[in-house]
Structure formats: C-alpha cells, structure tokens
C-alpha cells in the first residue's frame, strides 16, 4: 500500500464567484441610483463610497503594512483643498478632482520618503503632525479664510441633477478602480511580500523582502485612495471648512470601520464601511453619544474580537470571498503499488 498526495492549487471558487456577482450587482444598483432615487439617494451613495474608500485604504495601511496612521486626514483634506484651489483657478471641477487625486498620490510618495523610517507610535503621531501642519497652512490661505472656509462654487456650472449623477458615477468608478488595484497588488509578488511583512517583519527581511519598498507601494496607494475620498466628499457636499476635512473624527471612523469589519481583510473593510454607513444613518443624529458608542464598540472589538466580524465569518466560508491567496487542496489517493 502506498499513499500518494495530489495537490491542486486553485484560486477563488464558488464563494469568490458569488461575492463578485454580489459586488457587481451592488455597483450596478449604485450606478442606477440617479434614475431610481434622485438627488438625495445619490448623495448618500457617495457617502457610502467615500466610507468604503477610507476603510479599505486605512485597512491596507494598518492591516497589510502594519502602519497605524492617525493623520490620513492629511490626504483627505489636502485633496479637497487642491480641488478648491484648482476650481478657483478656472479648472473644470471634475478635472480638478482628478488632478487632486494625482496630487494626493504625489504627496503620498513624497511623504513616504521620510515617514516610513518611523514605526509604531512615532509614525502614527508623526502623520498626525503632518496633517495638523497642512491644516494650519490651509487656514493661512486667504481664499479659505481660516476656519470660515469656502465652497466649490464652480460646480454651479452644472445642473444639480447632472452633477449629483456625475459625482456618483465618478465616485463609483474611482472606488472600483482602487479596489481592483488593491486586489491586483495583493495577488502580485508584492502581495506575497505584504503578507510576509504582516506575519513577520524581521523574518521577511531576512528572506530578502524589500520591506520599505513594499510598505511604500501600500502607503502611496492608501494616500491616493484617501485623497480621492476627500475630493469626492467635497464634490458631494460642496462646502469646504478645514476642520470638517482635517478633523480627527475621520480617523475615528476609519478605526471603527476597520476594527469592527476585520483588520487585514478587504472583505472586513467593506463590511465595516457598510455597517458604519447604516449606523451613521440611524444614529448619526445623536451627536456625541453616537461617537461614544462608536469608540466603545471599536475598543470592544480591539480587545475581544481583534479580527472583527470578518474574522468570524471568513473562516466559516468555503474559500475566500475576495481571493488573494491560493487554495491548496490535498487529495489523498491510496493505491496499491506492485513491485
């Protein structure tokens, strides 16, 4: 008697196909909202997409690169500010948004050159210092007039219905593009390096993973996505008050979404964003109590369920929902060998 192992390596499976189908339906429904529900619905949909961007990007940073930042508002606020500035200079607001996203990527790359040498708490608060610095500098701009702020008046060139639909479609396109970029990144060689760093940074360095380069790729992607969220938030709300964009409450939202959904998994960030959206819709009017509740739930998850909701659901599904790894199946075949 001899036992032979046949190993098959696959990616995805039924769970992944169902997830993809669900996401595609969700995207189609969102794209159709301007006809289905009008302006109000489109505005809420943009909010949901912004939360998804923020959650997925912050999760990529904390969950994949091990970098907790409490200053991602740097990219969120600066992108909104650049959009305002470009539109004020006569650039079409939608072109301004795209340019602001590109500027966010550039800012991310420049920041990464020095910030990534920091780690842990120093990185976390160093990012916050950068965000505060940007906030102060934006306040100095006479166009913004300190905390008074201004509006993206250039959007008035478009009819209300047109622009709410365009903003939604742009938000949807950006979100899908960023998500796709992240999945492609995680499936690449760099993705394997990211997983190695997440599991054991020193060990991965010893097997030749370029830790700084890998972290930089994730950091720049996170900066780009977060900048997109800021520019889109501006397009949807039209007013720009610095405090509303650089405020620490955004970090609290990101923390909540990622911790509750599940740190280190894209699915977790998506669930966290969706949950946050629902909670915000239902309880947002409660003001400070609502924030107390968010904080308490986030701390509770951090202490008692550090892998979040997806950490509970994920392992119970057959296969990965958003497959980034490989599925290795072993089939034991018993055969009688003849001498």
């Amino acid at each position, binding site marked *: 008697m001899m036992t032979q192992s046949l190993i098959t390596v696959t990616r995805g499976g039924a769970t992944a196909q169902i997830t993809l189908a669900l996401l595609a339906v969700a995207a189609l429904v969102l794209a159709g909202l301007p006809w289905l529900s009008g302006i109000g619905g489109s505005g809420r949909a943009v909010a949901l997409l912004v939360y998804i961007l923020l959650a997925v990007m912050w999760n990529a940073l904390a969950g994949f690169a091990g970098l907790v930042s409490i200053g991602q508002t740097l990219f969120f606020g600066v992108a909104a500010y650049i959009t305002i500035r470009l539109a004020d200079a006569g650039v079409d607001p939608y072109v301004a948004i795209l340019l602001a996203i590109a500027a966010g990527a550039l800012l991310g790359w420049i920041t990464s050159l020095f910030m990534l040498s920091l780690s842990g*708490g120093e990185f976390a608060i160093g990012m916050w210092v950068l965000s505060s610095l940007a906030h102060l500098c934006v306040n100095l701009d006479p166009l913004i007039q300190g905390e008074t702020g201004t509006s993206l008046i250039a959007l008035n060139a478009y009819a209300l219905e047109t622009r709410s639909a365009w903003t939604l479609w742009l938000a949807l396109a950006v979100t899908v593009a960023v998500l796709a970029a992240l999945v492609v990144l995680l499936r690449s060689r760099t993705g394997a390096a990211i997983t190695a760093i997440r599991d054991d940074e020193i060990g991965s360095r010893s097997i030749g993973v370029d830790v700084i380069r890998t972290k930089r790729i994730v950091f720049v992607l996170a900066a780009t996505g977060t900048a997109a969220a800021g520019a889109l938030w501006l397009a949807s709300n039209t007013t720009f008050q610095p405090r509303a964009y650089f405020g*620490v409450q955004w970090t609290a939202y990101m923390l909540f979404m990622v911790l509750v959904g599940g740190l280190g998994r894209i699915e977790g960030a998506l669930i966290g964003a969706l949950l946050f959206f629902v909670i915000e819709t239902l309880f947002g009017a409660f003001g*400070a109590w609502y924030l107390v509740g968010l904080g308490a739930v986030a701390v509770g998850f951090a202490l008692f369920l550090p892998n979040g909701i997806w950490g509970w659901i994920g392992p119970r599904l057959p296969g990965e929902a958003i497959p980034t790894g490989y599925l290795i199946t072993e089939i034991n075949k018993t055969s009688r060998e003849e001498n």
Partner: protein
Amino acid sequence: MMGLVISAALLGGYYAILATGLAFMYSVMNIINLAHGALIVLAAYGLYVLGTQGIALPVGIVVMSVAMFAFGMLLHKTVLSRASGGGELLPLLATFGIAIILDNLMFQTFGADNLSLAPFVGDLSWASFELPGDIFVGQLSVYILVAALIIIALIETLMRRTDLGRRIQATSQDRATASLLGINTGRTAAIATGIALATGVFAATAMGLRSAWGPYSGSAQLLFAFEAVVIGGIGSMWRVLIGAMILAFAQSIGAAIHPQGFLIGGHLTFLIVVFYRLPTWRNAIAKFRQARVQA
C-alpha cells in the same frame, strides 16, 4: 528679547508637565497612550467640579491624584493589559478609542463651554513677579515650571532609588524574569499606569489655570506632549524637559515671525528632529563630513 526667552522657558515648563505622564508610560510600558490628553482634560473637569463644591484647589489636587491613580489601575486591568498582549498596533487603537469615548462623554456631561480653574485661586492667574529691567513674569507660569522640575525629580528618584521603581523597570524590561523573582507584574504595571495618570492631575491643574479648555482640548495637549517627548528622546525624564523647552522656543520663534506661526514652528521643529534622527540622513551627514576631512 529677554522677555521672549523667559516666556518661552516658562511655556517649556508647561509642556514638560504635560509630557511627563506620556513619557513615563512610554518608557516603562512601551505604550503610547493616545488617551493621555483626554485623561488630562478629565482630571481638569474633576478639579473644576471639586472647586465648585468649595473644595480648595490643593485639596482637590490630592483627591484627584488618588482618583486618577485608581482609574489608571482600573484602565490597565481592563484595557491595557489585554491590549499590550496583542502586538504593537492594539494599544494604539485601544487608547485612541478611549480618547474618543472620553472626549465625547465629557462633551455630553459638561457641554461645549470653555472652563477655567483660575477663579479658584484668587489673583494668582494674573499676579506677576517683577524682574530687573522692567520684565514682568507671571507667577503662575513660574510655579508651573517649578512643579515640572519637582515632578520629574520625584519620578527619577522613584525609578532609581526605590524598590517599587526597580520593580517597574524590571517589569518593563523582562516581564517573565520579573515574575520569576516574585514580582506581581500585572499589579506593578497597573501601579505604573496609575502613577502616569496621577501626574496628569498636575498637568490638568496647569492647563486649567493658564488657559480656557473644553471637552475636546485633549488632542492638542496630547500633540504638544508627544512632540516634547519625541524631540527630547527616550531615556531619562530630564530629556522630556529639554524636549519641552525646545518645543516652546520653536513655537515662540514661530509666533514672532508670523501671527499664525506658533503651532507651525513647533510642528516643523518636531519634523526636523525626526528627520535628523533617521538613519539614512545620519549616514549621509557622516559621509559628507568624511568627504570634507579627506578633501
């Protein structure tokens, strides 16, 4: 000019008192307590409430120190001990969450009004010493600087000269070995957290007397404290004092250059110090020096 130097040095005293508890917790427990600022504001509300009940501020400080010490032990037992077992990220996430909870709870309880402890100390908040050369120095800021020096000296003595200090150090350096020697490491770490929070009461007193504060003042205090700690560097508590002084001078110079330059000056100095410490920069500077010597 002399006036600027003196006022900056006194402001440095305030930052030192803000930063002590944060530095203490970082050096003995490797936890960056992102709730540090919110806890200081919490203590300030405690002092305010006691003050409105007619309790003299010095008595209030003693009462609040005991209360915050107890709260620190509780915080360690319920949150920090659990969080610090889960890697580097969890304490950051958990303490940030606590800061959000505290900020908003205080907003709900006390409202958005800015408060001050100054009414409880008579004319101390505007009394001043006169120095030769017609320079007037606020008495309060002098007392704050003296208090900072005393607190830092006390913590240094505690850590280097007492059994408790040695046990705290042993627990922070090698928990397993500390237990083998009979040290109750959980309790020791809880006591250290209690001490850190109790020093926050003095920071709260200083903050409450010198400025108006509200429920969300904590994050600004945390940022100042953290900048002072990083600029000074980890090691002795006296380095915190140096860091606080540098931060205060940078801010004062910034304010002298531009009306809005106060905070910007501090942030820029923080970033310069951080960049200077980066290994790549160090190497580059060393190479540059070598090249000059050879030339």
